């Protein structure tokens, strides 16, 4: 029984690898934008700030399947953006793992922005003033003071987003379907196994793996977070 639990077939392995790949890319690619959006939401004064705020949070409050459907409406092969991308640079998202990355990134984005925004609000603007009197230009202040002091929040946001991306199901399956080896992520694979008779055993194994990855990610974030907080003076 125990050996069986750890026995992973090619389907399972592919799903795990793909999930990790999708979650990693989704996190890395959205991180710079999330930092930028968090900064302007926390600090900026501009027209339409509330609109941007709502837009960012939309994936958090809408049913995931709606987000997936909207993505399909935009990025489908014969839909405006999808057609443009395919014709101009030959880039196809729908039913590809890259599409899974987009879906996961959009679903995880609000969580990431929220966490980073909190970090921005915790940065003492007085320290930034001090940096300016020492000769640092506004850009240097951002790079050398603001971002380092935000680091604990950035790490927390990234881990949260990674976990969310790893578990994303609704928007992903709607947008890129559930194609083995192409778009079948861990949650999609679990779902598929549950649909076939006798698949519970394999599903259970994957559930165990999913729990394991989540716990590892959380532990990693705790350790990393503690180190970073110690470095920036623990607030």
């Amino acid at each position, binding site marked *: 029984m125990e050996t069986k639990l750890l026995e992973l077939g090619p389907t399972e392995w592919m799903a795990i690898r793909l999930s990790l790949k999708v979650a990693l890319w989704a996190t890395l690619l959205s991180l710079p934008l999330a930092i930028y959006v968090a900064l302007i939401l926390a600090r900026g004064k501009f027209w339409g700030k509330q609109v941007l705020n709502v837009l960012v949070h939309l994936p958090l409050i809408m049913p995931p399947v709606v987000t997936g459907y909207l993505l399909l409406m935009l990025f489908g092969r014969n839909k405006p953006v999808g057609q443009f991308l395919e014709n101009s640079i030959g880039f196809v998202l729908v039913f590809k793992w890259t599409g899974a990355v987009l879906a996961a990134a959009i679903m995880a984005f609000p969580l990431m922005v929220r966490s980073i925004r909190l970090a921005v609000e915790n940065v003492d603007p007085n*320290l930034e003033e001090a940096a*300016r009197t020492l000769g640092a*230009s506004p850009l240097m202040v951002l790079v050398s003071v603001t971002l380092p002091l935000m680091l604990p929040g950035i790490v927390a946001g990234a881990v949260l987003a990674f976990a969310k991306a790893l578990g994303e199901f609704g928007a992903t399956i709607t947008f890129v379907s559930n194609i083995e080896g192409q778009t079948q992520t861990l949650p999609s694979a679990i779902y598929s196994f549950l649909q076939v008779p006798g698949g519970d055993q394999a599903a259970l194994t994957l559930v165990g793996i999913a729990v394991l990855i989540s716990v590892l990610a959380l532990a990693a974030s705790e350790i990393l977070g503690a180190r970073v907080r110690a470095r920036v003076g623990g607030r």
Partner: protein
Amino acid sequence: MSLRIDIGHRIGELNLSVAFSVESGVTALFGPSGSGKTTVLKAISGLLHPDHGKIDIAGRSVFDREKGINFPTHKRQVGYVFQDARLFPHLTVKGNLEYAYKFADRGRKLDRKIVDLLGIGPLLERRIDGLSGGERQRVAIARALFSDPKILLLDEPMAALDEPRKREIFPYLERLRDEAGLPIIYVSHSLSEVARLASQIATLKDGKMASFGATSDVMSNPTLVQDLGIRTAGSVLRAQVENHFPDGISELRTSVGSLFIPSVTAPLESVINLRILARDVIISLSKPENISALNILPAKVVSIKKGEGPGTIVELASGEDRILARITSRSAETLGLSVNTPCFAIIKSLSINPGEVWT
């Protein structure tokens, strides 16, 4: 090296209007909280843009509303030491110093002279959260100096420190004044700090300049006593150390004779300053005898300024020195004091606070 400022600015209830110019040395900005002292510093550093006026630093115009000149803070070369030090918590002491000279024009290396001036050599590898308040301020001052400033702004650098910490940091401030060769603007509402450090004082009241001049002149000007704070008003004397007695008393020679005060550490023949609080001075028309007070100085009334309360400030000339005495208006009347009345100023030795004696 100089600073010229002439600005007006409205911020909330405060209608600030300030104009003065200074060369090297310490200029104190003195006034009650809310009188606009910090606003002036912020305007000089460019953290705040005044509604009108102009500011020159070291002969260069950094702000001129009419001509549309407004240098951003990072291009003004203004060293700013904040009340709360504002060291970067994600960097070590050394990292904080490096941060400043990274952007400075001159040498891009650790200048030992500045490190030694502030005595922070042993702290370099330390983390910020392990520093005491006094250490933080010394690092903050060193950091400001490393940025190669044309002027140094100190915003109540000792306000957040307790008495022992203040005593610890004071000698460094005095060395800074003597060795930095920069104009230093020192914001404070402690008269004893100002008396010890500043060669001139600008007093602010409700955003307006109430006075501007040499420290000893401003401090012994009875009409300004109200602005300076009656309880701590006092005059500054210069005197030479004449003798140290084994019973814990030092004898000083002033322009009019001997002055006995609690022992000082200054060597014989050296010149020291001391501040005598107006409330500690007694006036007598005849020379008292059989009295415990050791100091009885012959004097003459220069001016009398009646306060709004029960007190009157009497300005006395004693030799070449000025002494302020704060007595009740009732006593002034009973004694029949008027300008040129000869009298004696009586000062208890022990009323002189060792913290108000300096070299």
